[in-house]
């Protein structure tokens, strides 16, 4: 490659270079506008803005107090969630599509969502996950949300531990909501939202091993596609306007890819550093025994460990069938209960050709629709009837054992 750098390139006139610069700038501007969702005739600055101080929001869930013009959130409510909202009037969605929000000391362990109601459907609450606000004013383009239309009657925020990632035991850290602005679409607004989309913090999620963007998260066109298109247009204008030939084009390609790659990687490294900082906040300085309990679904872990203890105390190696209202919870329960010899209930029932062997345990975790009749000793669900005795009933965790009862000693 150094050979490429030292190659002598043919000269091109200043006029052609100027034309190249103008064409390139125009192309890149069009690309940026496309990515930001603005057209060439959009105004540079928003023509109207609705401003709300944080203190104008009322607390619906959790606790807090006014702090000057801001709202200090000091506590969470049910399910470790905080919610604040404000009723609004004369707010047309189409004219106020760029949301800008400023928070102070918003913890990385929380997920932030924007909520709104429309006047035409006051019972429906729409919730949109927002990029983490960071320390500056963040922005989001609500035109990407299909439900953001018509007359808006209420707006607000919801904060909760980042799903799938942050253990519920993670201590809550207070933060301040400084302001909300809703502006009409403009170049500045669109570019601010694009900056947030490209460079804002996104936490790890279960999807992260399949792709870098959450499948349900609303995203603008990626920086990768914009950079790729920018490099291709540069090569095309170079060849057309200043007659780049093979060596020059190769050199420019190498430089552009190197620059683009480093830019993308700097963005990724910043993202990675923020994610690891979050992990560090939650797990650093703790023993493995403490860390293994710090999982987002610690309720499943506790129930599985309780069931494991009970079944391990039973002589022999009984088979155990696990069922939950959610497949994810059922499999997590199964994994956390190992080495108990278990299986998921539904696949087993699907292939069952004979009654379940007596002594088999049935574990029901956080599941509705399963009833037990002490009179008939029948555990029933739609399409299922099993003769069983109750072994444990702790609300969300229920354990039964397949009868005949006469062969089974008393339940604990």
């Amino acid at each position, binding site marked *: *490659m150094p*050979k490429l750098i030292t*190659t*002598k390139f*043919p000269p091109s006139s200043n006029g052609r270079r100027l034309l190249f610069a103008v064409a390139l700038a125009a192309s890149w501007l069009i690309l940026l506008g496309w990515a930001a969702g603005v057209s060439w005739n959009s105004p540079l600055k928003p023509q109207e803005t609705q401003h709300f101080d944080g203190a104008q929001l009322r607390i619906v869930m959790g606790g807090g107090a006014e702090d000057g013009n801001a709202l200090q959130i000091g506590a969470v409510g049910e399910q470790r969630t905080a919610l604040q909202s404000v009723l609004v009037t004369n707010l047309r969605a189409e004219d106020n599509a760029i949301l800008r929000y400023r928070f102070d000391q918003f913890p990385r362990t929380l997920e932030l969502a924007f909520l709104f109601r429309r006047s035409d459907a006051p019972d429906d609450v729409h919730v949109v996950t927002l990029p983490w606000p960071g320390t500056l004013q963040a922005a989001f383009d609500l035109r990407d949300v299909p439900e953001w239309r018509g007359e808006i009657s209420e707006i607000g925020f919801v904060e909760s531990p980042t799903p799938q990632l942050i253990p519920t035991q993670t201590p809550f850290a207070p933060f301040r909501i400084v302001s909300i602005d809703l502006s009409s679409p403009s170049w500045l607004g669109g570019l601010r939202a694009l900056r947030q989309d490209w460079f804002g913090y996104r936490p790890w999620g*279960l*999807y*992260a*091993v*399949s*792709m*870098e*963007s959450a*499948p349900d998260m609303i995203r603008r066109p*990626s920086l*990768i*596609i914009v*950079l*790729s298109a920018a490099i*291709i247009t540069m090569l095309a204008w170079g060849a057309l306007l200043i007659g780049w*030939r*093979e*060596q020059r*084009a190769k050199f420019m*390609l190498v430089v552009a*890819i190197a620059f*683009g790659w480093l830019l*993308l*990687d700097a963005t*990724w*490294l910043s993202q*990675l550093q923020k*994610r*690891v900082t979050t*992990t*560090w906040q939650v*797990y*650093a300085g703790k023993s*493995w025994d403490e*860390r293994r309990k*710090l*999982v987002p679904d610690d309720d499943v872990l506790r129930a599985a460990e309780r069931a494991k203890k009970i079944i391990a105390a039973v002589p022999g190696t009984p*088979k155990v069938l696990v069922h939950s209202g959610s497949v*994810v919870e059922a*499999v*997590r329960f*199964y*994994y956390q209960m*190992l*080495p108990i*010899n278990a*299986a*998921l209930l539904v696949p*087993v029932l*699907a*292939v*069952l*050709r*004979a009654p379940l*062997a007596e002594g088999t345990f049935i574990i029901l975790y956080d599941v509705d629709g399963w009833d037990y009749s002490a009179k008939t000793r029948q555990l029933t669900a739609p399409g299922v009837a099993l003769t069983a005795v109750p072994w444990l009933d702790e609300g969300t965790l229920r354990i039964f054992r397949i009868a005949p009862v006469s062969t089974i000693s008393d339940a604990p």
Partner: protein
Amino acid sequence: MIYALVWLAILALGMALVAAARGVPRSLVQWMVLAGEGAIVGMLAAGIVVGLSCGADSRNAVEHGLPWMFGLMAIVVLLAWRTRRASLVNSVGVAERSAGGPERHTRLIVCFVIALIALHLLPLLVELLLRPVFPWDAWAAWMIKPKAWYLGGHFDAFVDPATWITSADILRTTPAFRYPELSSWLQLLLADGYGEWNEPMVLVPWAVLFVGLLLAMYGLSRRLGSSTTVAVIACYALASMPLIDAHIALAGYLDLWIGAVILLSLGAWLEWRRQPQRRGLLVLAFALAWSLVLLKQEGAIWLLVLIAVGVYGQLGAVWQRRDLWFAASTLVLLVLMVLVFHGWINDRLAGIDVPGIGVLQLGWYPGGLTLITALFQHDDWHLLGLTLLLVPIVRWRNLCADREAQLLGLFLLAGWIALLLLFCFTPAAKWAESQTATNRLVMQLVPTMVLWLILLLRPSSLPSRV
């Protein structure tokens, strides 16, 4: 202490096996290949040894496995020693021949790139070592067997739910009961070495794989004729890709393992083509290709593709042309048949249930094309998609003249065709649309794609057009 000893045994076994196949290293580049390949081969070999040596007792994997590992290592070293004359023949690549050390600006670039790689590696290690197992398939599929075996103390077989519920024997079942078990055997060894079921400690192989892959990529690039700078940039390119990093930080999936093993297998095969008298390289290439089947189910497909390309590479020019024509016309015919007669075909295929795909219904599923658009759509691969698009164009003359680049390109082409057939013509398209599997399958080809680009960027003896 025992955990460290287990790692020592794994690395020593792997390096001994690779040294037996490649010969005793005589340069820094060869040492890097040995270290990188050795780490990966060692982990694969250790897993196989544990799987074969433990019998029914899965609680004492170290006790059962380590003597076999050291024994195997001793035999391999002995064999290598006896054949040392042959193995000492140095296979110096084009770039290795340059006399003297690298120039100052090259050293600066190399240091800068190594620092960039370290910037990625450190946070990945922190994430890997702190967090309990995180991604879905890691705990829902891959780590169930080693955890059950280690904590249960018995090598129970995993069977389908119907067999499990009706059998009086002590069996186990899981939705992923069919998955290959090589990684589980390795994790079992590490859990026993550590003395408890500690998830980060049994996931450390992912970090070792990452470092091994980078070292091997550097070594292979250099041995196949790249400059130091280009080889180290190849390592950085791999280390910087977000989805690869995610697979190390959130360890537990085997897609990068497949990608690394394919790369090593192809690398050993290309080197063997340069030195056919070094049959150890061919054995290494085949052993690595075969281990794909023990890692993941789709490893069988990659094994077939590798064998097909391997056989193709050995054919004469006339037969190669015929072979390509036959493959291309068969492919076109198959695609046309599916497009035109899918209704008739599906009537005859009715009821065939393919694991992982569902009931086989052939047809055109345009959603499968997200396989390609995903290269640009998400922040997974940086500019790999653009590079793959443009580098073959600007280096077309090199590609036409470079046999190794052509063979590697053929493997990649066959791999992409296999993926496109799967996602565009079968119900597996649903995985492409939800993008849960497509990027991971592409990842299995990414290390080879990077090596291919490196081959295309090798210095050329062709005259340039200024």
